[in-house]
């Protein structure tokens, strides 16, 4: 008996139609939800007024080099997306991965024309894993890849 008799073709076609319809529905749904699926806004988007004004939101980017100032538990730093940066004030304990030039996500709200007050600071990892004692040759390999 052949692999695809009429019966099998009919079942297969039925399944294919359902799958295509399902994929299309999912695609449209995801497109509609797209904005809500953004976990954070970039400083440029915040400056352009895309972030919500009346409730808390998250802002993500890199910690601007040389911007970290600590005063007891209160920390001042700037979040940058390399085009714009916004100063942030936060009171609390920072995660281990919080460093200059590393990814960060802050949760809170704008409390001034140019000040973001954060209730929570999350560090974002950059998907790189490497030992600290890498040789220059290996470093070059990692940078070009």
């Amino acid at each position: 008996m052949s692999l695809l008799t009429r019966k099998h073709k009919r079942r297969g076609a039925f399944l294919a139609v359902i799958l295509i319809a399902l994929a299309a529905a999912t695609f449209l749904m995801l497109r509609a939800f797209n904005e809500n699926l953004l976990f954070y806004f970039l400083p440029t988007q915040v400056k352009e007024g895309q972030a919500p004004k009346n409730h808390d939101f998250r802002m993500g980017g890199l910690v601007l080099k040389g911007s970290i100032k600590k005063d007891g538990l209160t920390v001042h730093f700037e979040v940058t997306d390399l085009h714009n940066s916004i100063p942030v004030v936060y009171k609390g304990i920072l995660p281990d991965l919080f460093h200059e030039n590393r990814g960060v996500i802050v949760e809170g709200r704008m409390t001034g024309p140019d000040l973001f007050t954060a209730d929570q600071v999350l560090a974002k990892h950059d998907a790189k894993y490497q030992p600290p004692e890498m040789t220059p040759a290996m470093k070059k390999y990692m940078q070009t890849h």
Partner: protein
Amino acid sequence: MIRKFSSPKTFYPLAGKLMPWFFWTFAVLGLVGLYWGLVLAPVDAVQGQSYRIMYVHVPAAWMSMMIYTSMTAAAITALVWRTKVAEYWLLCSPGLGASFTFITLVTGSLWGKPMWGTYWVWDARLTSELVLLFIYFAILAMKSAVPDRRKAARVMAMITVVGFVNIPIIKFSVDWWTTLHQGDSIFRKGGPSIAPAMLVPLFMMALSFTSYYFWLVLKHIRTMIERKPV
């Protein structure tokens, strides 16, 4: 070919021959990979020792998606050709899939606390992986809700096929949306961003987990064939 390999008469002895290979791959690579990953591999420049949880987290996450993909292939085969072995495959996989998904979520959460500063966030990657766990639960619920094994497999196959849309969403969530979870370290443009000394044991663990799954599935299917003689 599908007909031949999914006939219990061909499958039973073939599975019997393959099982020891899967078992020993699982055992040997698992032990070597675990020792290499947890002891021999260098510390990470940024994360220190904590990154080693990756050797369980990443293979478990791959398995959660791989098992689902294999179930989808089995589901299509079961729906179109009504073959018994595909149905058996479908009946014995969701429990394992749910377990690996659970391990992924728990190890990820424990890793997230020291590194990100939180156990859980509702970003697209974490949420879609949680949805996968619920889909596995739905499939498992159908298995216990329908008493007849063949009918249960049909219902499970339909849910499996529908739920497959979630798999590309999990995989590409980190590219499509901004997430707290970092992007892919391995299947990315320009090759892996993991140092080779850390990558080799990771692949060993992935191969070990995969073999573990195949070993268990084959064992399960053979038992099912024995229980109901063909």
